[in-house]
């Protein structure tokens, strides 16, 4: 599904990502962990085209997407959620999803029809699926933090992605919100046959759903393997897990 080969990126001499390779198989749930500043978000930005790598390759579903712009990568079937919630704050929840569907179906060039008439049924269905049907008329910026994250997931799903990248999907959530969000993620990934690649600092979350874990440390891949292997790895325990488990 996704192959990352020797990805490099530095900012003014500082090596943010230094030669990271990672394979993600179809329908696999993969977590990228590492302490703050390990390069997780930069790594994501390199995959989704928000940043251009200095060298290395990103191959998605057999196609080389290295350096392609975000909107094109999105259209190839990659969805993404962001670390800071990334919704359209002044639009209603319904309009957020509807707008994303319009964009995905390439209707944005239509400047003469009424936008509110499009994809009403699909929007409604997606809202039910992410559990926000009761908030359809709410202005998105006024939603609770957990609900905003749900909505963001909904926006990411409008493009019917095969691979979903989630940057700290439970950051800032309460324990209950985290639990609900994980349930939702697992259910949706199962229903839609999604491949998930996510970053996370909460180890409970990681070990709860990840099938494979990659550990980033100072821009380099320290180790990768199953949750069990990572728990047992002395190097990983030293730099990262030691403090939390």
């Amino acid at each position, binding site marked *: 599904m996704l192959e990352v080969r020797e990805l490099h990126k530095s900012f003014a001499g500082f090596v943010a990502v230094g030669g990271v390779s990672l394979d993600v198989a179809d329908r696999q749930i993969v977590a990228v962990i590492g302490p703050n500043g390990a390069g997780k978000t930069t790594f994501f930005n390199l995959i989704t085209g928000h940043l251009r790598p200095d060298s290395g390759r990103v191959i998605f579903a057999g196609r080389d997407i290295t350096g392609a712009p975000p909107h094109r990568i*999105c259209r190839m079937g990659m969805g993404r959620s962001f670390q800071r919630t990334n*919704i359209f704050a002044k639009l209603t929840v319904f309009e957020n999803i509807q707008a994303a569907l319009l*964009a995905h179906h390439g209707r944005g060039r239509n400047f003469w029809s009424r*936008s509110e008439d499009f994809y009403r049924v699909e929007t409604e269905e997606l809202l039910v699926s992410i559990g926000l049907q009761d908030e359809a008329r709410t202005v998105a910026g006024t939603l609770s933090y957990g609900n905003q994250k749900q909505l963001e997931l909904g926006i990411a799903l409008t493009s019917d992605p095969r691979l979903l990248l989630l940057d700290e999907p439970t950051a800032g959530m309460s324990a209950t919100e985290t639990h609900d969000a994980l349930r939702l993620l697992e259910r949706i990934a199962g229903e839609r046959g999604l491949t998930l690649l996510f970053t996370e600092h909460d180890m409970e979350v990681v070990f709860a759903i990840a099938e494979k874990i990659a550990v980033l440390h100072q821009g380099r891949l320290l180790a990768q393997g199953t949750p069990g292997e990572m728990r047992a790895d002395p190097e990983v325990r030293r730099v990262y897990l030691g403090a939390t488990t």
Partner: protein
Amino acid sequence: MRRSASRLPWTLIVFLAMASVPWIGSRYDAFLAGQITIDALFAVSLNLLLGTTGLVSFGHVAYFGVGAYVYGILMKAYGVPFVFAFPAAGLGAALFAAISGYFCVRLIKLYFAMLTLAFSQIVWAIAYKWNAVTGGDQGLPEIPYPDLGWMSAIPGCGDLSTGARFYLLTLVLVAVALAILHRIVRSPFGRMLTTIRDNPERAAFIGLNVRAYQLAAFIVAGGFAGLAGALYGIFSRGVFADYVFWAKSAEVIIMAILGGMDYFWGPPVGAAALVWLNQQVTDYTQYWPFVLGSLLLILLFVFPGGLVGGVVAGVSRLQRIIAGRDA
């Protein structure tokens, strides 16, 4: 209550009230109404960038000016009739917006604003110095009215002066232009622009080519500003370099903010308020900018959503009070 109020055809009522000015108002009233009508189109065209797409342009007057000059030059130097010169003014402004916008949308926020200002100052410098074509500081005086003899055939218009007839023509053309802009804002294209306004980073990752959409909005806004400019040139009987001076860009931003840039009808309300205030205040004092500044300060603190935002908030508060009494 709100339902019955919102069902009233407000746009039609305002249009008919504006259209009646030549019959019931003085010549001066008609002058003010013409000014408001043209400024309304100019302000709405700016708001497609400001309120809808989230792009702060400090140089929108450039496209207004290009429209005015294209019309003036076609009319005076080549005698092109209104039916062709008027659309040409819009197309000319849109073309210039395409060229300058291509560079502007490559920058963000304040850098975008500065580059739009730079382009408008370039237009101003050309208007001011290129004597052979633009008339330099003399401008292009005595732009004739288009031939409006045909309006005699419309009942009730037979006795109207050419100026009053041109005002009516302006009103109809602006109404059509606003209807088109309204439709664009409500379309899927308009919806994409609002997602870019709210969050350009996210908009890119729902599959939008953000720069291309921003450029398209820039071109449409420029084209309609050009139409407003052409009308203004005829309305003021001449095209002058002053029209392209940056202060007018500031004025149209004030109109949009004063009226409420989150609402389609905010900028026209702001245009009407500013023209009316200007006229009222200059009757009493020469310190108009001081009074305007103070008024703006108060308005922006009391009504952060502009005049229209203030009315909307007031109406919904009233509704809650009434609903509270009923319950």
